[in-house]
Protein backbone atom coordinates (compact mmCIF):
# COMPACT_ATOMS: atom_id res chain seq x y z
CA UNK A 1 0.00 0.00 0.00
CA UNK A 2 1.56 3.26 -1.08
CA UNK A 3 2.12 6.23 1.24
CA UNK A 4 2.25 9.68 -0.27
CA UNK A 5 3.59 13.00 0.89
CA UNK A 6 1.02 15.65 -0.01
CA UNK A 7 1.02 19.45 0.09
CA UNK A 8 -2.39 21.06 0.06
CA UNK A 9 -3.46 24.68 0.51
CA UNK A 10 -6.50 24.82 2.76
CA UNK A 11 -8.23 28.11 3.54
CA UNK A 12 -5.12 29.92 2.34
CA UNK A 13 -2.71 27.98 4.52
CA UNK A 14 -0.31 25.26 3.38
CA UNK A 15 -0.67 21.86 5.02
CA UNK A 16 1.64 18.90 4.46
CA UNK A 17 1.47 15.31 5.53
CA UNK A 18 1.93 11.65 4.69
CA UNK A 19 -1.24 9.81 3.74
CA UNK A 20 -2.05 6.24 2.85
CA UNK A 21 -3.40 6.02 -0.69
CA UNK A 22 -6.76 4.83 0.65
CA UNK A 23 -7.30 7.74 3.05
CA UNK A 24 -10.43 9.64 2.13
CA UNK A 25 -10.01 13.39 1.93
CA UNK A 26 -12.67 13.99 4.57
CA UNK A 27 -10.87 11.71 7.02
CA UNK A 28 -7.57 13.52 6.47
CA UNK A 29 -9.25 16.88 7.07
CA UNK A 30 -11.08 15.75 10.20
CA UNK A 31 -8.78 13.20 11.81
CA UNK A 32 -5.29 14.39 10.86
CA UNK A 33 -5.76 18.15 10.50
CA UNK A 34 -8.57 18.43 13.07
CA UNK A 35 -10.60 20.55 10.65
CA UNK A 36 -13.80 19.04 12.00
CA UNK A 37 -16.20 21.59 10.52
CA UNK A 38 -16.56 19.28 7.53
CA UNK A 39 -19.01 16.55 8.54
CA UNK A 40 -19.65 12.96 7.54
CA UNK A 41 -23.31 12.01 7.27
CA UNK A 42 -23.43 8.85 5.18
CA UNK A 43 -21.50 6.00 3.61
CA UNK A 44 -22.99 6.34 0.15
CA UNK A 45 -21.90 9.75 -1.21
CA UNK A 46 -25.51 10.89 -0.91
CA UNK A 47 -25.82 13.44 1.90
CA UNK A 48 -23.38 16.23 1.03
CA UNK A 49 -22.48 16.96 4.68
CA UNK A 50 -18.81 16.63 3.61
CA UNK A 51 -19.00 19.16 0.75
CA UNK A 52 -15.93 21.39 0.35
CA UNK A 53 -14.45 23.31 -2.57
CA UNK A 54 -11.47 21.92 -4.46
CA UNK A 55 -9.99 24.41 -6.91
CA UNK A 56 -13.27 26.29 -6.69
CA UNK A 57 -15.50 23.33 -7.50
CA UNK A 58 -17.74 21.71 -4.89
CA UNK A 59 -16.95 18.08 -4.13
CA UNK A 60 -18.16 15.52 -1.64
CA UNK A 61 -14.88 15.07 0.21
CA UNK A 62 -15.87 11.54 1.26
CA UNK A 63 -15.67 10.57 -2.41
CA UNK A 64 -12.18 11.83 -3.13
CA UNK A 65 -8.88 10.44 -1.89
CA UNK A 66 -6.66 12.72 0.17
CA UNK A 67 -3.79 11.98 -2.21
CA UNK A 68 -5.87 13.40 -5.07
CA UNK A 69 -5.84 16.80 -3.34
CA UNK A 70 -2.04 17.08 -3.64
CA UNK A 71 -1.12 20.50 -5.01
CA UNK A 72 -4.71 21.73 -5.03
CA UNK A 73 -6.48 24.57 -3.24
CA UNK A 74 -9.24 23.69 -0.81
CA UNK A 75 -11.81 25.76 0.97
CA UNK A 76 -13.62 24.29 3.96
CA UNK A 77 -16.26 25.85 6.17
CA UNK A 78 -13.53 27.06 8.54
CA UNK A 79 -12.30 29.33 5.76
CA UNK A 80 -15.56 31.24 5.36
CA UNK A 81 -15.13 33.55 8.32
CA UNK A 82 -12.55 36.29 7.76
CA UNK A 83 -10.97 38.35 10.57
CA UNK A 84 -13.76 37.53 12.97
CA UNK A 85 -16.41 38.54 10.46
CA UNK A 86 -18.97 36.00 9.32
CA UNK A 87 -19.29 35.30 5.61
CA UNK A 88 -22.62 36.52 4.15
CA UNK A 89 -23.70 32.87 3.89
CA UNK A 90 -23.02 32.27 7.58
CA UNK A 91 -24.81 35.49 8.39
CA UNK A 92 -27.74 34.44 6.19
CA UNK A 93 -28.04 31.04 7.88
CA UNK A 94 -28.06 32.84 11.23
CA UNK A 95 -30.51 35.60 10.35
CA UNK A 96 -32.91 33.35 8.43
CA UNK A 97 -32.78 30.56 10.99
CA UNK A 98 -31.61 28.06 8.37
CA UNK A 99 -30.44 25.36 10.75
CA UNK A 100 -31.78 23.26 13.55
CA UNK A 101 -29.33 20.52 14.47
CA UNK A 102 -26.72 22.09 12.18
CA UNK A 103 -25.29 18.83 10.94
CA UNK A 104 -25.90 19.59 7.27
CA UNK A 105 -24.97 23.27 7.57
CA UNK A 106 -21.26 23.28 6.64
CA UNK A 107 -21.86 21.20 3.51
CA UNK A 108 -24.94 23.22 2.66
CA UNK A 109 -23.01 26.48 2.86
CA UNK A 110 -20.16 25.17 0.73
CA UNK A 111 -22.55 23.91 -1.96
CA UNK A 112 -24.31 27.29 -1.82
CA UNK A 113 -20.99 29.10 -2.15
CA UNK A 114 -20.15 27.10 -5.27
CA UNK A 115 -23.58 27.90 -6.68
CA UNK A 116 -23.25 31.65 -6.01
CA UNK A 117 -19.81 31.77 -7.62
CA UNK A 118 -21.32 30.34 -10.79
CA UNK A 119 -24.63 32.14 -10.60
CA UNK A 120 -24.66 35.26 -8.40
CA UNK A 121 -28.39 35.83 -8.82
CA UNK A 122 -30.08 32.42 -8.76
CA UNK A 123 -33.84 31.90 -8.83
CA UNK A 124 -35.44 29.87 -6.06
CA UNK A 125 -35.58 26.90 -8.43
CA UNK A 126 -31.88 27.26 -9.24
CA UNK A 127 -31.04 27.40 -5.53
CA UNK A 128 -33.07 24.26 -4.87
CA UNK A 129 -31.29 22.51 -7.74
CA UNK A 130 -27.91 23.78 -6.55
CA UNK A 131 -28.33 22.22 -3.11
CA UNK A 132 -30.08 19.07 -4.30
CA UNK A 133 -27.00 17.00 -3.45
CA UNK A 134 -27.19 18.12 0.18
CA UNK A 135 -29.71 16.57 2.53
CA UNK A 136 -31.22 18.28 5.55
CA UNK A 137 -33.36 16.17 7.84
CA UNK A 138 -34.53 19.07 10.01
CA UNK A 139 -35.45 22.30 8.31
CA UNK A 140 -37.54 21.41 5.28
CA UNK A 141 -35.18 23.63 3.24
CA UNK A 142 -37.42 26.73 3.19
CA UNK A 143 -35.16 28.77 5.44
CA UNK A 144 -32.04 27.40 3.79
CA UNK A 145 -33.28 28.80 0.49
CA UNK A 146 -33.97 32.15 2.20
CA UNK A 147 -30.49 32.17 3.74
CA UNK A 148 -28.90 31.63 0.34
CA UNK A 149 -31.05 34.39 -1.13
CA UNK A 150 -29.92 36.66 1.71
CA UNK A 151 -26.27 35.86 0.97
CA UNK A 152 -26.73 36.26 -2.78
CA UNK A 153 -28.12 39.73 -2.32
CA UNK A 154 -25.44 40.72 0.16
CA UNK A 155 -22.66 39.40 -2.10
CA UNK A 156 -24.05 41.35 -5.05
CA UNK A 157 -23.90 44.62 -3.12
CA UNK A 158 -20.59 46.47 -3.51
CA UNK A 159 -18.44 45.30 -0.63
CA UNK A 160 -15.96 47.39 1.31
CA UNK A 161 -13.83 44.30 1.93
CA UNK A 162 -13.68 41.66 -0.78
CA UNK A 163 -14.22 37.98 -0.11
CA UNK A 164 -10.64 36.78 0.34
CA UNK A 165 -8.53 35.87 -2.62
CA UNK A 166 -7.41 32.25 -2.62
CA UNK A 167 -10.76 31.21 -1.24
CA UNK A 168 -10.98 28.60 -3.91
CA UNK A 169 -12.66 30.87 -6.43
CA UNK A 170 -12.11 31.17 -10.11
CA UNK A 171 -12.03 27.52 -11.11
CA UNK A 172 -8.98 25.61 -12.18
Amino acid at each position, binding site marked *: *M*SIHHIRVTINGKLYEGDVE*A*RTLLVHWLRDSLRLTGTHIGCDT*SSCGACTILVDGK*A*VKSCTMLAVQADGRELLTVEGLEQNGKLHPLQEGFHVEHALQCGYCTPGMMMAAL*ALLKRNPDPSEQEIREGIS*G*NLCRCTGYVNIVKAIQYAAQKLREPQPEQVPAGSGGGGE
Partner: protein
Amino acid sequence: MIPGPFDYQVASSVAEAIALLDQHGADAKVLAGGHSLIPLLRFRLASPAVLVDINRLRDLEYMQEADGTLHIGALTREVDLEASDLIRRRYPILADTARVIADPVVRNWATIGGNLAHADPANDHPATMLALGAQLVATGPTGQRLIPIEQFFTDSSFETTLQPNELLTEIRIPAPAERSGGAYLKLERKVGDYAIAGVAAYVVLDGAGHVTYAGIGLTNVGPTPIKARAAEQLLRGSTLDDAVIAQAARQAAAEAQPVSDLRGPADYKRAMVETLTMRALRQARSRATGGA
Protein backbone atom coordinates in the same frame (compact mmCIF):
# COMPACT_ATOMS: atom_id res chain seq x y z
CA MET B 1 -16.19 2.86 5.61
CA ILE B 2 -12.54 2.96 4.66
CA PRO B 3 -11.34 1.30 1.45
CA GLY B 4 -8.99 -1.65 1.64
CA PRO B 5 -5.32 -1.03 0.86
CA PHE B 6 -4.12 -0.25 -2.65
CA ASP B 7 -1.28 1.53 -4.40
CA TYR B 8 -1.99 4.81 -6.11
CA GLN B 9 -0.31 6.11 -9.23
CA VAL B 10 -1.11 9.35 -10.96
CA ALA B 11 -0.77 9.37 -14.72
CA SER B 12 0.60 12.51 -16.35
CA SER B 13 -0.13 11.43 -19.92
CA VAL B 14 -2.40 9.00 -21.74
CA ALA B 15 0.68 6.97 -22.70
CA GLU B 16 1.75 6.76 -19.06
CA ALA B 17 -1.74 5.68 -17.98
CA ILE B 18 -1.74 2.90 -20.56
CA ALA B 19 1.78 1.80 -19.61
CA LEU B 20 0.66 1.54 -15.97
CA LEU B 21 -2.44 -0.43 -16.95
CA ASP B 22 -0.34 -2.70 -19.14
CA GLN B 23 2.11 -3.28 -16.31
CA HIS B 24 -0.53 -4.12 -13.68
CA GLY B 25 -3.13 -5.85 -15.86
CA ALA B 26 -6.36 -6.88 -14.19
CA ASP B 27 -5.03 -5.79 -10.77
CA ALA B 28 -5.33 -2.15 -11.77
CA LYS B 29 -8.34 0.12 -12.05
CA VAL B 30 -8.63 3.51 -13.65
CA LEU B 31 -9.72 6.30 -11.30
CA ALA B 32 -11.70 8.94 -13.19
CA GLY B 33 -14.34 11.01 -11.36
CA GLY B 34 -14.33 8.31 -8.69
CA HIS B 35 -18.05 8.66 -8.01
CA SER B 36 -18.81 5.04 -8.77
CA LEU B 37 -15.40 3.56 -7.97
CA ILE B 38 -14.75 5.17 -4.57
CA PRO B 39 -18.16 4.11 -3.17
CA LEU B 40 -17.35 0.55 -4.38
CA LEU B 41 -13.97 0.69 -2.67
CA ARG B 42 -15.57 1.97 0.52
CA PHE B 43 -18.00 -0.93 0.57
CA ARG B 44 -15.10 -3.20 -0.35
CA LEU B 45 -17.03 -4.44 -3.35
CA ALA B 46 -13.92 -3.72 -5.39
CA SER B 47 -10.36 -4.30 -4.20
CA PRO B 48 -7.93 -3.39 -6.97
CA ALA B 49 -4.23 -3.55 -6.07
CA VAL B 50 -3.47 -0.36 -7.97
CA LEU B 51 -5.43 2.75 -8.87
CA VAL B 52 -4.31 4.72 -11.91
CA ASP B 53 -5.59 8.28 -11.48
CA ILE B 54 -6.33 9.95 -14.82
CA ASN B 55 -7.78 13.17 -13.39
CA ARG B 56 -4.76 15.24 -14.40
CA LEU B 57 -5.14 14.34 -18.10
CA ARG B 58 -6.69 17.63 -19.13
CA ASP B 59 -6.25 16.68 -22.78
CA LEU B 60 -9.06 14.14 -22.29
CA GLU B 61 -11.54 16.91 -21.43
CA TYR B 62 -13.04 18.35 -24.62
CA MET B 63 -16.12 18.52 -26.82
CA GLN B 64 -15.71 19.41 -30.46
CA GLU B 65 -17.35 18.80 -33.82
CA ALA B 66 -15.14 17.76 -36.73
CA ASP B 67 -15.84 15.88 -39.97
CA GLY B 68 -19.50 15.29 -39.23
CA THR B 69 -18.77 13.83 -35.78
CA LEU B 70 -18.97 15.10 -32.23
CA HIS B 71 -15.84 14.10 -30.31
CA ILE B 72 -16.09 14.05 -26.52
CA GLY B 73 -13.01 13.39 -24.40
CA ALA B 74 -13.62 10.56 -21.93
CA LEU B 75 -12.71 12.72 -18.94
CA THR B 76 -15.28 15.42 -19.79
CA ARG B 77 -17.25 16.20 -16.62
CA GLU B 78 -21.04 16.06 -16.55
CA VAL B 79 -21.15 19.70 -15.44
CA ASP B 80 -19.36 20.75 -18.63
CA LEU B 81 -21.65 18.72 -20.88
CA GLU B 82 -24.66 20.20 -19.15
CA ALA B 83 -23.40 23.77 -19.49
CA SER B 84 -22.06 23.50 -23.05
CA ASP B 85 -23.77 25.69 -25.59
CA LEU B 86 -22.77 23.29 -28.38
CA ILE B 87 -24.37 20.36 -26.57
CA ARG B 88 -27.55 22.23 -25.67
CA ARG B 89 -28.01 23.57 -29.17
CA ARG B 90 -27.01 20.60 -31.31
CA TYR B 91 -27.35 17.56 -29.02
CA PRO B 92 -30.23 18.30 -26.63
CA ILE B 93 -30.57 14.57 -25.83
CA LEU B 94 -27.10 14.71 -24.27
CA ALA B 95 -27.97 17.78 -22.22
CA ASP B 96 -31.19 16.01 -21.13
CA THR B 97 -29.05 13.11 -19.93
CA ALA B 98 -26.25 14.98 -18.17
CA ARG B 99 -28.57 17.17 -16.15
CA VAL B 100 -30.50 14.26 -14.60
CA ILE B 101 -27.39 12.39 -13.46
CA ALA B 102 -26.97 12.45 -9.68
CA ASP B 103 -26.76 15.98 -8.25
CA PRO B 104 -24.74 19.09 -9.14
CA VAL B 105 -21.93 18.35 -6.67
CA VAL B 106 -21.46 14.84 -8.05
CA ARG B 107 -21.66 16.19 -11.62
CA ASN B 108 -18.66 18.45 -10.94
CA TRP B 109 -16.42 15.37 -10.87
CA ALA B 110 -18.33 12.56 -12.58
CA THR B 111 -17.06 11.90 -16.12
CA ILE B 112 -18.87 10.66 -19.22
CA GLY B 113 -16.15 8.05 -19.81
CA GLY B 114 -16.51 6.67 -16.29
CA ASN B 115 -20.27 6.59 -16.66
CA LEU B 116 -19.94 4.33 -19.71
CA ALA B 117 -16.93 2.25 -18.58
CA HIS B 118 -18.67 1.44 -15.30
CA ALA B 119 -21.41 -0.32 -17.36
CA ASP B 120 -23.95 0.07 -14.59
CA PRO B 121 -27.41 -0.63 -16.05
CA ALA B 122 -28.66 2.15 -13.75
CA ASN B 123 -26.34 4.76 -15.31
CA ASP B 124 -27.98 7.17 -17.72
CA HIS B 125 -25.42 7.70 -20.51
CA PRO B 126 -25.44 4.11 -21.84
CA ALA B 127 -29.08 4.31 -23.02
CA THR B 128 -28.47 7.64 -24.72
CA MET B 129 -25.33 6.36 -26.44
CA LEU B 130 -27.21 3.24 -27.61
CA ALA B 131 -29.94 5.46 -29.06
CA LEU B 132 -27.41 7.72 -30.78
CA GLY B 133 -25.32 4.88 -32.18
CA ALA B 134 -22.12 6.21 -30.60
CA GLN B 135 -18.65 4.80 -31.17
CA LEU B 136 -16.07 4.58 -28.42
CA VAL B 137 -12.34 4.96 -28.85
CA ALA B 138 -10.29 2.54 -26.77
CA THR B 139 -6.58 3.30 -26.59
CA GLY B 140 -4.13 0.57 -25.65
CA PRO B 141 -0.40 -0.23 -25.97
CA THR B 142 -0.72 -0.93 -29.69
CA GLY B 143 -2.88 2.07 -30.55
CA GLN B 144 -6.55 2.88 -30.90
CA ARG B 145 -9.57 0.81 -31.84
CA LEU B 146 -13.17 1.84 -32.40
CA ILE B 147 -15.90 0.00 -30.52
CA PRO B 148 -19.51 0.49 -31.64
CA ILE B 149 -21.56 1.11 -28.50
CA GLU B 150 -23.68 -2.00 -29.02
CA GLN B 151 -20.51 -4.07 -28.76
CA PHE B 152 -19.22 -2.23 -25.69
CA PHE B 153 -21.49 -3.72 -23.04
CA THR B 154 -21.56 -7.48 -22.50
CA ASP B 155 -24.40 -9.69 -21.21
CA SER B 156 -23.23 -9.14 -17.61
CA SER B 157 -23.76 -6.09 -15.43
CA PHE B 158 -20.69 -3.90 -14.82
CA GLU B 159 -18.72 -5.49 -17.67
CA THR B 160 -17.42 -4.04 -20.93
CA THR B 161 -15.32 -5.30 -23.81
CA LEU B 162 -12.46 -2.93 -22.88
CA GLN B 163 -9.23 -4.83 -22.24
CA PRO B 164 -7.53 -4.31 -18.86
CA ASN B 165 -4.73 -2.38 -20.60
CA GLU B 166 -7.06 -0.12 -22.57
CA LEU B 167 -8.26 3.34 -21.65
CA LEU B 168 -11.54 4.67 -22.96
CA THR B 169 -10.33 7.94 -24.46
CA GLU B 170 -13.11 9.34 -26.62
CA ILE B 171 -16.81 9.08 -27.41
CA ARG B 172 -17.88 9.77 -31.01
CA ILE B 173 -21.42 10.70 -31.95
CA PRO B 174 -22.66 11.32 -35.49
CA ALA B 175 -23.42 15.03 -35.99
CA PRO B 176 -27.15 15.66 -36.32
CA ALA B 177 -28.63 15.23 -39.79
CA GLU B 178 -30.93 18.00 -40.98
CA ARG B 179 -34.12 16.37 -39.75
CA SER B 180 -33.06 14.51 -36.63
CA GLY B 181 -33.90 14.76 -32.97
CA GLY B 182 -33.71 12.92 -29.71
CA ALA B 183 -34.72 13.07 -26.07
CA TYR B 184 -33.88 11.37 -22.81
CA LEU B 185 -36.56 10.99 -20.16
CA LYS B 186 -35.93 9.60 -16.70
CA LEU B 187 -38.35 8.80 -13.94
CA GLU B 188 -36.76 9.08 -10.51
CA ARG B 189 -38.06 8.58 -6.99
CA LYS B 190 -36.30 11.66 -5.74
CA VAL B 191 -33.79 14.17 -7.05
CA GLY B 192 -30.35 12.67 -7.53
CA ASP B 193 -31.47 9.06 -7.50
CA TYR B 194 -30.86 6.45 -10.14
CA ALA B 195 -33.74 5.87 -12.56
CA ILE B 196 -36.85 3.84 -11.80
CA ALA B 197 -36.77 3.66 -15.59
CA GLY B 198 -35.22 5.84 -18.28
CA VAL B 199 -35.68 5.97 -22.05
CA ALA B 200 -33.52 7.56 -24.74
CA ALA B 201 -34.96 7.96 -28.23
CA TYR B 202 -33.30 9.31 -31.35
CA VAL B 203 -34.73 9.53 -34.88
CA VAL B 204 -33.60 10.74 -38.29
CA LEU B 205 -36.23 11.57 -40.91
CA ASP B 206 -35.89 11.93 -44.67
CA GLY B 207 -37.39 14.80 -46.70
CA ALA B 208 -40.74 13.02 -46.93
CA GLY B 209 -40.90 12.50 -43.17
CA HIS B 210 -40.02 8.79 -43.19
CA VAL B 211 -37.79 7.41 -40.47
CA THR B 212 -34.35 6.46 -41.82
CA TYR B 213 -32.78 5.83 -38.40
CA ALA B 214 -34.32 5.03 -35.05
CA GLY B 215 -32.49 4.36 -31.81
CA ILE B 216 -34.05 3.46 -28.46
CA GLY B 217 -32.08 2.78 -25.28
CA LEU B 218 -33.46 1.78 -21.87
CA THR B 219 -32.00 2.55 -18.43
CA ASN B 220 -32.23 0.39 -15.30
CA VAL B 221 -34.78 -2.11 -16.53
CA GLY B 222 -32.50 -5.10 -16.95
CA PRO B 223 -29.09 -6.50 -16.04
CA THR B 224 -27.45 -4.34 -18.72
CA PRO B 225 -28.32 -1.20 -20.68
CA ILE B 226 -30.88 -2.34 -23.28
CA LYS B 227 -31.15 -1.46 -26.96
CA ALA B 228 -34.80 -1.96 -27.94
CA ARG B 229 -34.07 -3.39 -31.37
CA ALA B 230 -37.56 -4.63 -32.25
CA ALA B 231 -39.08 -1.26 -31.35
CA GLU B 232 -36.46 0.46 -33.52
CA GLN B 233 -37.35 -1.92 -36.37
CA LEU B 234 -41.04 -0.96 -36.12
CA LEU B 235 -40.18 2.70 -36.48
CA ARG B 236 -37.82 2.39 -39.45
CA GLY B 237 -39.56 3.44 -42.68
CA SER B 238 -42.64 4.67 -40.83
CA THR B 239 -43.91 8.25 -40.79
CA LEU B 240 -43.60 8.39 -37.00
CA ASP B 241 -47.29 9.05 -36.47
CA ASP B 242 -48.89 8.62 -33.05
CA ALA B 243 -50.10 5.11 -33.86
CA VAL B 244 -46.65 3.79 -34.72
CA ILE B 245 -45.16 5.58 -31.72
CA ALA B 246 -47.69 3.82 -29.45
CA GLN B 247 -46.87 0.49 -31.07
CA ALA B 248 -43.11 1.03 -30.67
CA ALA B 249 -43.60 2.06 -27.05
CA ARG B 250 -45.47 -1.20 -26.33
CA GLN B 251 -42.67 -3.09 -28.04
CA ALA B 252 -39.96 -1.31 -26.02
CA ALA B 253 -41.83 -2.22 -22.83
CA ALA B 254 -41.85 -5.84 -23.98
CA GLU B 255 -38.09 -5.69 -24.52
CA ALA B 256 -37.45 -4.35 -21.00
CA GLN B 257 -36.42 -6.91 -18.37
CA PRO B 258 -37.23 -5.14 -15.11
CA VAL B 259 -37.14 -6.80 -11.71
CA SER B 260 -39.07 -5.75 -8.63
CA ASP B 261 -36.97 -3.86 -6.10
CA LEU B 262 -37.06 -0.81 -3.82
CA ARG B 263 -37.80 1.39 -6.82
CA GLY B 264 -41.00 -0.47 -7.63
CA PRO B 265 -42.58 -3.67 -8.93
CA ALA B 266 -41.54 -5.03 -12.33
CA ASP B 267 -44.99 -4.45 -13.88
CA TYR B 268 -44.93 -0.81 -12.90
CA LYS B 269 -41.49 -0.32 -14.37
CA ARG B 270 -42.56 -1.98 -17.61
CA ALA B 271 -45.57 0.32 -17.81
CA MET B 272 -43.29 3.29 -17.22
CA VAL B 273 -41.02 2.21 -20.06
CA GLU B 274 -44.03 2.30 -22.36
CA THR B 275 -45.07 5.78 -21.23
CA LEU B 276 -41.55 7.18 -21.30
CA THR B 277 -40.87 5.71 -24.75
CA MET B 278 -44.02 7.31 -26.08
CA ARG B 279 -43.10 10.69 -24.64
CA ALA B 280 -39.45 10.47 -25.68
CA LEU B 281 -40.39 9.59 -29.27
CA ARG B 282 -42.88 12.45 -29.46
CA GLN B 283 -40.28 14.86 -28.18
CA ALA B 284 -37.69 13.46 -30.58
CA ARG B 285 -40.17 13.98 -33.44
CA SER B 286 -40.86 17.50 -32.31
CA ARG B 287 -37.15 18.32 -32.14
CA ALA B 288 -36.54 16.66 -35.52
CA THR B 289 -39.16 18.89 -37.09
CA GLY B 290 -37.88 22.13 -35.63
CA GLY B 291 -39.61 22.21 -32.23
CA ALA B 292 -38.15 22.16 -28.74
